[in-house]
């Protein structure tokens, strides 16, 4: 393992910050009961993953990967890596589409059960399961 020199720490502190953000998102997803809040947590998580990718594509002294319009490219110019940009660009739009799918599910859950708190939903689920078992038992004539 590399020694913890100052250069090493400065070169890695960005990854650590993104990890902290990511874990904040994960904490929201795990610890909060409200479904909307969970979606926000997922968004925070997702954005920090994006930042991690983009920061990997950065080259020191580089500039945005867009050539001059006349295509006379100065060979000394350093460009940052365009590949992570492409991946993340599409990922953001797909991310918002899937987020809206999640929100739509939440709206349906609210309409069906009248709550979007996880605890209450679990209670309702349990009651429904018990009811199902009872009905099943009755239908089998007490044999099941």
């Amino acid at each position, binding site marked *: 393992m590399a020694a913890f020199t100052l250069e090493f720490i400065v070169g890695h502190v960005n990854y650590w910050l993104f990890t902290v953000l990511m874990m904040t998102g994960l904490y929201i997803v795990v610890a909060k009961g409200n479904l909307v809040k969970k979606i926000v947590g997922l968004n925070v998580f997702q954005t920090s993953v994006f930042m991690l990718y983009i920061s990997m594509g950065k080259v020191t002294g580089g500039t945005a990967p*867009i050539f001059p319009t006349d295509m006379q490219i100065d060979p000394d110019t350093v460009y940052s890596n365009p590949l992570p940009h492409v991946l993340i*660009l*599409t990922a953001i*739009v797909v991310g*918002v*589409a899937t987020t*809206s799918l999640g929100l*739509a599910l939440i*709206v349906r859950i609210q309409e069906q059960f009248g709550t979007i708190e996880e605890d209450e939903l679990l209670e309702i689920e349990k009651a429904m399961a018990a009811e199902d078992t009872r009905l099943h038992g009755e239908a089998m004539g007490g044999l099941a």
Partner: protein
Amino acid sequence: MRHHLILRVVTKLLVGAIILFALYVQFHGDFSPGGGFQAGVIMAVAFIIYGVVFSLRQAQRVFPPWLVHKLLALGVLIYAFTGLVSMALGYEYLNYGAFTPHHPEHGQHWGILIVELGVGVTVTGVMVAIYYAFAARPPTISDKDW
């Protein structure tokens, strides 16, 4: 939002500018930052802001839901058919050099423009459709509770 006069006037001014900006981003995406994804989102924002400030009904009169649903599918079809055309011309799927065989750079340029248009159309359609779907439901919170 009937009573917010300033908001309504400013929105009227802005919607045109936003749509223009979306078209710029769409068709200038190969020279400057931008492209189909961003343009689609910005275009959708124009309709969404119109719907929020005026009313959903008015927004739907400008951009009716059936049209949105057609656009949704149209964009993906534009993209996929571009690939099929280049295949029919004897090249690989989505190899835009096929359009101008003697000068593949131009073909690439055209291909990118068409494909980005497909992306933009789909993204606009999806975002506006999602907004319509959410806004058409009766809210459980009244305006005053905010």
